């Protein structure tokens, strides 16, 4: 009976506690982003090699981190759905996907903008950029599968399986791309590695920006999960009216 209690209570309980939490998370995210970005853009020195272009890391690095974290969150949520049949978790995975997709796009665009002055081209088949492009395709497929299936529980099941299998192949692709690029260029000469390029003075505002992006990610996922729960509730109510 414990199981059925979980299933019955959780979407409602989730709606209950997220209602007051959501504005707080949005507020904190806003504060962190404003502080981190203003600090990073206007109160740090220009890099001796890269000039002011380096400052795009305050958008690029946090977005890239969140792009990966969103997929990891989807994987965990999918596992919880498969094991516990916990509706909120399936819907949270669905909610995280489009946020993750957006973060991947931001990372790709800022990477291209950064690449122009650094490499003289907007796009290079750098292993890291390529990996994000592949991640983008994984997000597209996952979201398309959610959209294509009518029955929400079937969609949750199938996307969960896809997410698990996709995770394995995403990791494989990451290493395959490293292998492939080394094969072409004899070692990565174009690196976007922040550890190599970023001096200590840039780190603190970067950490604040990462915190801001993480909070923004949480807030957006909560908001979208709430929307998905409401959509399911409407569906359930409509079904009940039809049966009555």
């Amino acid at each position, binding site marked *: 009976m414990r199981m*059925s209690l979980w*299933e*019955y*209570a*959780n*979407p409602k309980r989730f709606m209950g506690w997220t209602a007051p939490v959501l504005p707080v998370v949005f507020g904190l995210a806003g504060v962190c982003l404003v502080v981190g970005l203003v600090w990073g853009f206007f109160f740090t020195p220009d890099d001796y090699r890269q000039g002011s272009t380096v400052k795009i890391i305050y958008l690029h690095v946090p977005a890239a981190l969140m792009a990966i974290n969103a997929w990891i969150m989807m994987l965990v949520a999918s596992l919880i759905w498969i094991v516990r049949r916990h*509706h909120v978790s399936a819907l949270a995975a669905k909610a995280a996907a489009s946020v993750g997709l957006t973060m991947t796009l931001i990372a790709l665009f800022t990477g291209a903008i950064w690449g122009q002055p650094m490499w003289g081209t907007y796009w290079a088949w750098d292993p890291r950029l390529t990996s994000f492009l592949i991640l983008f395709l994984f997000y597209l497929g996952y979201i398309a599968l959610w959209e294509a299936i009518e*029955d*929400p*529980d079937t969609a949750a099941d199938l996307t969960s399986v896809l997410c698990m299998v996709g995770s394995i192949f995403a990791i494989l692709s990451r290493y395959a791309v490293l292998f492939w690029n080394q094969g072409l260029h004899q070692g990565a000469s174009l690196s976007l590695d922040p550890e190599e390029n970023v001096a200590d003075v840039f780190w603190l505002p970067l950490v604040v920006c990462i915190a801001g992006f993480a909070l923004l990610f949480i807030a957006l996922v909560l908001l979208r999960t709430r929307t998905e*729960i409401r959509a*399911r*509730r409407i*569906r*359930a*109510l409509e*079904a*009940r009216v039809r*049966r*009555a």
Partner: protein
Amino acid sequence: MLRVQNLTCARGGVPVLSGVSFDVAAGQALILRGPNGVGKTTLLRTLAGLQPALAGAADYPQDQGAYASHADGIKTALTVTENLAFWADVHGTILSDGIFATFDLVDLRDRMAGTLSAGQKRRLGLARLGVIGRKVLFLDEPTVSLDGFSVRLFADWLQNTHLAGGGISVIATHIDLGLAAPELDLTPFKAAPDVGGGSDEAFL
């Protein structure tokens, strides 16, 4: 022996039947009745294990169940014999000559299934049940597009071979097969709008 206890089954995540309970003893058949959409197909698919029950259970030897509906898995590019031999192979049984006679397929043995008439195709689909040697059959409208003669052929096989050999069958049908079998009207088991277990329940 098939024992169904307090079964609730759903179509598209919505409960359609609840509290279904019945017993069928070895050598017996049960005819399911009820208007279209009451959930006969859903019940049969649930019993056959193709979809999970929301509540309750159906007890029978798990390796003895077989399901048949109008979609009977006949490959039009295979001959009648090849179609049956495939299912015999999958089920680890031997395709005997008798089965062709029983279902009046002797003259059609080497015909491509694609060239058969609708009724002949149905006989082939039903002959599969005689080939696979399963004891507990869940049949969904087995006599669609069969003429009177073929219906009698099938009813005879069901009565004289399957049931006489200790088999069980649960049959959803609109026509009279002429079996001395009890009937179960599913209308009283129609799930009330507030019955629990649907996939959307957690959101209400």
